[in-house]
């Protein structure tokens, strides 16, 4: 006879079933796709990734066959930074370069933001401006130097203008894309709630696009830094980019290294600040239950 049960009743549990089995360390391979790694392992590897090139640099510079003109050692570069600080005007150079980058970048952000908002919101504005912007952004910013000198002169304005030309057009396109990526459902939901066009822009599109816009600002800030050297080609007599150009004339390879590394470090610091602001300004992106 077949026994039928309406409900399954568990057999009385043996002691061994109430305790979890001995936890064995899960087998992990380094090559698991998107695998997991303990924070300690992660940061050890990250430190290694920075230390190895530095060590290689040290070793290479020690070789007698490599002239200091071609490859100064890390210590030479550090010494040069020290001399730059005591004999030169390192802080002044950093300050003026930061000013130029921030001014050029902020100016382009100031104009790009409303433009991008209009391009991403209205088809007509998009048709009018996007193809044009797409065309201009392929023009090399460096080639604008003679024109900028002709039109603006050789003052601070010229340096800021070069950084502006280098970042503005890319910035508009990226920001317009950020605005366009606001989900249509979010906009339609507001429409069905009776929102006016202005209210939709102010209360839905802008807050929805904000995190992506801040990311774009962060990325374009990086690009602004890469245009610094180009900008300081224009009749500058101060700044990190100018220092690099001048060092080239005197074959001071260690100073070129110092300038490049300083720009990299300052850029990294700015980037981290942006990331921090992102975390503070958009807690909802990082909130997890």
């Amino acid at each position, binding site marked *: 006879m077949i026994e039928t049960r309406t409900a399954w009743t568990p057999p009385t549990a043996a002691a061994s079933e109430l305790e979890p089995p001995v936890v064995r360390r899960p087998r992990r391979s380094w090559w698991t796709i998107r695998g997991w790694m303990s924070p300690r392992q992660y940061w050890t590897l990250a430190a290694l990734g920075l230390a190895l090139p530095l060590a290689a640099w040290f070793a290479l510079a020690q070789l007698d066959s490599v002239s200091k003109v071609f490859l100064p050692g890390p210590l030479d570069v550090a010494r040069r930074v020290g001399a730059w600080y005591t004999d030169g005007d390192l802080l002044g150079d950093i300050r003026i370069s930061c000013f130029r980058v921030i001014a050029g970048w902020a100016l382009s952000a100031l104009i790009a933001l409303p433009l991008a908002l209009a391009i991403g919101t209205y088809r007509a504005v998009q048709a009018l401006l996007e193809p044009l912007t797409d065309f201009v952004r392929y023009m090399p910013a460096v080639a604008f130097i003679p024109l900028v000198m002709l039109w603006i002169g050789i003052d601070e304005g010229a340096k800021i203008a070069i950084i502006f030309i280098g970042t503005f057009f890319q910035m508009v396109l990226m920001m317009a894309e950020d605005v366009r990526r606001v*989900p249509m459902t979010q906009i339609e939901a507001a*429409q069905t709630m*009776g*929102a006016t066009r202005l209210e939709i822009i102010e209360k839905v599109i802008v807050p929805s696009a904000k995190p992506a816009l801040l990311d774009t600002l962060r990325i374009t800030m990086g690009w602004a830094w890469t245009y610094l050297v180009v900008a300081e080609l224009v009749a500058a007599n101060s700044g990190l980019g100018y220092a690099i150009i001048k060092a080239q004339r005197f074959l001071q390879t260690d100073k070129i290294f110092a300038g490049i590394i300083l720009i990299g470090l300052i850029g990294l610091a700015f980037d981290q600040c942006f990331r921090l602001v992102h975390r503070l300004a958009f807690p*909802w992106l990082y909130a*997890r*239950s």
Partner: protein
Amino acid sequence: MRSLIRCSGLWKVFGAGPSRVTALRNISLDVVEGEFVTLVGASGCGKSTLLRTLAGLETPTAGELEACGAPIVGPGVDRAMVFQHYSLYPWLTVTQNIKFTRELSAHTRGRTSADVEAASGRAAALLDLMGLGAVADAYPNQLSGGMQQRVAIARALMSRPRILLMDEPFGALDAQTREVMHDLILHVSALEDCTVVFVTHDVEEAIYLGGRVVLMAPRPGRIDSQYDVPLPPLREQAMKHDGAFLNLKGQILDRIRATSGLKTDIELLQKLSRVAHHR
């Protein structure tokens, strides 16, 4: 009983020239105050387009369209809509999402301090009604799909719309959550005195929720047939096993199969399985 939604000779054509598609062909549909109408049909039958036209999100190509006695020319505060997903504002907390309408001029014109007070009471009541009290200050991305849809419904109800339009609101939820949401929406729509038009592709859902099921057919989108649901207005899950329920479900499913234009080529499948056996 007066019609809250009147729709006659409605056409919606997308595109022009050889690529034009007739999404809605000559739709006539009346919805009476207090009714719960479900629109069901195969994909591409235009049920969502019809709902979006009622919401004022699409402009009809031709036809008469009225809601609450006034012609529909765009979205209006008398009609609220619940979307399938991604309609909540992730930067606002649950409470702020629900109170979103209160930020809009359409709802604040001539507002007095008593209204503001009433509104916060309304928001609190909706939080309670939808079982959202514990997550009032959470952000949408901290909630499950079912909870997110509760917020979306509460937000739609905030401004006391007379008509609630729902576009497959439970389509992305798992079966168990969906059952809970069914009983919730029936309860809430009765309590709020709302007329509901509900789009779904799930026949069981259409029958369980609807007082009337409108079946649409694709290519071109049109109303194929309508069914009054022979169940008492107070629904219970057990009714899904009633003969009347199952009968209607079978009838509608057969009709959808006949009109969908999709069919399984049984002969081909049999031939293929014979070939496989001979190997």
